[in-house]
């Protein structure tokens, strides 16, 4: 392999690695706050990309119908959870969050979609359709399981994953889609041409990661999320509602998922079930980082992206084998370090 091919492969690897990194960050967030290993993360990626593709084609995205349905189910679940102690104010909030909001987005989509409003409005609309699904899914599926074991939460996540994949097939069919690139042109960096799309993906990932960092370190609500992650009962004793933190974490996860979908849409063809393997790699990166460290998760994700890109060139049939077996020694090393710390 000559150096220029190598550099192109690294560039590809960094681009997909950046996506894995974003997903890893949100998986770490969701896990630490709610203990849920969020398998359906990948579905948000697919929904984001495919909703965008539908909008580009000037059609009404049926994910908006699903948003409405999830909202209604979340309203019912929310009411059932709080029916004995609900106040008028909280009821009003619940209705606004779960019924009014999706209705507005639905009408907006109905009105905007056939008009082909252009790249940015379409992207915003796609994000608006997918992001609220996160909190709704938390209300419907995971809040009633707040006390369950990690294993049960994991299996519930599998259930959500299956349902969402099923809907993905119904909405978008088995055909894949690719969206138009939103950053054209390229940049000569020494011997390599760096595509604008790659730069955009990297830039957006770094910006988002930095934003998350700021939120967590500086804002009180960020600290509340962190506190919930560290000690759930402690958080409740100072008045932080774990279910509110869960909804926020799921919302961030859905947003990051959808945004990742928008970012990779122009690079690869996304199918209704593409999310699973993409999410799995983000998940692996998150675990390599011990499900607690954000910078380590990002680094691991970039490494996986590069490794995958190199492997796909030299032995494409064994790409996944190489990527996944290479993880084992890393895991071993992490685990040894981890246990030693755990004993102290």
């Amino acid at each position: 392999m000559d150096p220029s091919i190598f550099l192109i492969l690294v560039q590809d690897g960094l681009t997909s690695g950046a996506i894995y990194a974003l997903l890893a960050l949100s998986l770490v967030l969701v896990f630490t706050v709610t203990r849920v290993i969020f398998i359906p993360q990948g579905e948000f990626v697919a929904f984001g990309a495919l909703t965008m593709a539908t909008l580009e084609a000037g059609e009404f995205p049926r994910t908006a119908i699903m948003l409405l349905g999830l909202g209604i189910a979340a309203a019912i679940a929310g009411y059932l959870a709080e029916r004995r102690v609900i106040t008028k104010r909280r009821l009003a909030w619940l209705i606004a969050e779960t019924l009014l909001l999706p209705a507005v987005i639905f009408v907006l989509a109905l009105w905007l979609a056939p008009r082909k409003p252009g790249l940015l409005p379409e992207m915003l609309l796609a994000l608006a359709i997918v992001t609220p699904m996160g909190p709704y899914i938390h209300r419907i599926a995971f809040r009633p399981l707040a006390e369950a074991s990690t294993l049960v939460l994991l299996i519930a996540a599998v259930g959500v994953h299956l349902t969402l994949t099923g809907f993905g097939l119904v909405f978008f069919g088995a055909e894949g889609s690719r969206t138009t690139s939103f950053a054209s042109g390229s940049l000569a960096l020494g011997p390599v041409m760096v595509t604008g799309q790659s730069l955009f993906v990297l830039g957006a990932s770094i910006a988002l990661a930095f934003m998350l960092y700021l939120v967590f370190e500086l804002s009180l609500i960020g600290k509340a999320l962190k506190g919930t992650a560290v000690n759930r009962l402690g958080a409740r004793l100072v008045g932080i509602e774990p279910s509110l933190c869960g909804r926020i974490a799921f919302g961030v996860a859905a947003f990051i998922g959808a945004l990742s979908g928008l970012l990779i849409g122009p690079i690869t063809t996304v199918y209704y079930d593409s999310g699973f393997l993409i999410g799995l790699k983000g998940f692996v990166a998150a675990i390599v980082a011990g499900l607690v460290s954000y910078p380590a998760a990002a680094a691991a994700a970039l490494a996986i992206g590069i490794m995958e890109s190199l492997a796909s060139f030299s032995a494409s049939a064994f790409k996944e084998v190489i990527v996944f077996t290479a993880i084992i020694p890393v895991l071993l090393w992490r685990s040894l370090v981890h246990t030693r710390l755990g004993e102290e």
Partner: protein
Amino acid sequence: MPRRFAPVIGFLVALGVPLLPGVPPFWITLLDYIGLYAIVAIGLVVLTGIGGMTSFGQAMFVGFGAYTTAILTTRYGLSPWLALPVAIIVTAVAALIIGAVTLNLSGHYLPVGTIAWNISFYYVAGNLDFFRRYDGISGILPLSMFGVSFLDSARLYYLILVVVALAMIATENLLDSRIGRAIRALNAGAVAAEAFGVDIFRVRIFVFVYAAVLAAISGFLYAHMQRAVNPSPFNIEASIEYLLMAVVGGASHVPGALLGAGIVTLIKNELQDVLPKLFGLEGNSEIIVFGVILVLMLQVAPEGLWPLVSAPFRRALAKQRFSGTAKLVAQKSEMLSRREPPPRGDKLLEAIGLRKRFGGLVAVNDVDLDIRSGEIVALIGPNGAGKTTLFNIITGVDRPSAGHVRFNAHDITSMPARLVARLGLARSFQHARLIPGMSVIDNVAIGSHLRADAGPFRALLRLDRQEEGRLKREALAELERVGLAGEAERPALSLALGRQRIVEIARALSSDPVLLLLDEPAAGLRHQEKAALAALLRKLSEEGVAILLVEHDIDFVMGLCERVIVMNFGSKLAEGTPAAIARDPAVIEAYLGLGA
């Protein structure tokens, strides 16, 4: 007690199913599949539900079993009945190697490790000619035995039924044994079990191999039932599905595996039939509804369905357990042998220049310590003085940064906890570390783990009852000694914290120690209970057991001990008789305060 026969009746009913008139053959085939899935899920109950190791790799082990018999029987013409042991051995060896590499992984690294192995297996099988790539191997012969061919699903049903029943019985036997207690300690009691000589890593490997072998047997049957294999049923999705069955049924209950496999298979099948008729939906739409049902089921029964189903029989089951213990204890068998304590006054434990650094903090700083046989010594000092760290170094939980420890004529510096335990050292923990989900008596019995030697095979075949009786009798005797015999069958964690500490003392005693290390044994006891504890410790000391205890209750310490060691900021501040310590001005300033 007719309920004792419930499993037998269940088996007989299951035997009769194919004989019922009008049962469509497709149903029998479905039942065959349920049986095959259940065998794998039983392994997961032990591995994941009880052992706490989440595996996303069981489908790979099913694949090992299936491919081994497929290759051996089609390519080399081997009889399936010879291929079976080979498949088991191949899988066991593979699991042993994979386990040795992967089971060092703690916490969430393990599931990812198994994901990685499973995905790799899928792509390797799909890309190598040796496995006939994605097309797979066909033309596998059906099983036959004594001239009877298991070609049709009804005959195969009986074979699968017997295997499922055997797997369930063997697994229940295994869990109710010396090894079973160690397995149940894997999830949340590893440190405590290790302190009583359980080799946690070996037990983890064993459980991993056990679950893999069950998976391989299922794979073997699958290959001869399908008469063809290809990589797709052994992919990661299938592994997730096995896990799902175990969890839906009740991941820590053996019958739950069968229940889960049945319910998941039936629901999926019904949805495939019903949905297209109901909504006219085509394609993959059944997984939408399946996912919803799965989530709802977990919300209704987060512990799985088996605890829900078996709830009406819970009292009967508890009674059965109780009489089971009584029967074991009543068996005629000799007592466990006792260790001869070293002559009174001999130097038993000697620590020289012990030091422990955590990062920049020196938790223990050049501490010397010696304890003679039969002596009671107290270690006191403010919080953070390094008492518990010193305990952890002596017992092998932590390694010292410098210094040496000799115990009972052996150098035990940096020796792992389970080997230190062998030499006759037992401990209790500051925060009681009883094993959740186990009764009081089982928790105590794990203390005498090293005084018996029945391994997994004797347990599987139930050849360990004599020894088990001895262990239970010893545990009961120790519980009597600490006054908790009446609580023997209660779940250990339902006791109050103070009493859990006392159970820990019984557990330590059942290991027949020569040195007992107790971390705050009197905390949370009221006055009379403290007096009883002091009397017990005095009696042990008369029997020749040496005792080192950390305690904040000064009255308790002063009345009981011959010698008191005071620690402050990691160093030894003073040492002497209780009376001398109580007068020592340095001790008063640092620890006791003016009022004491």
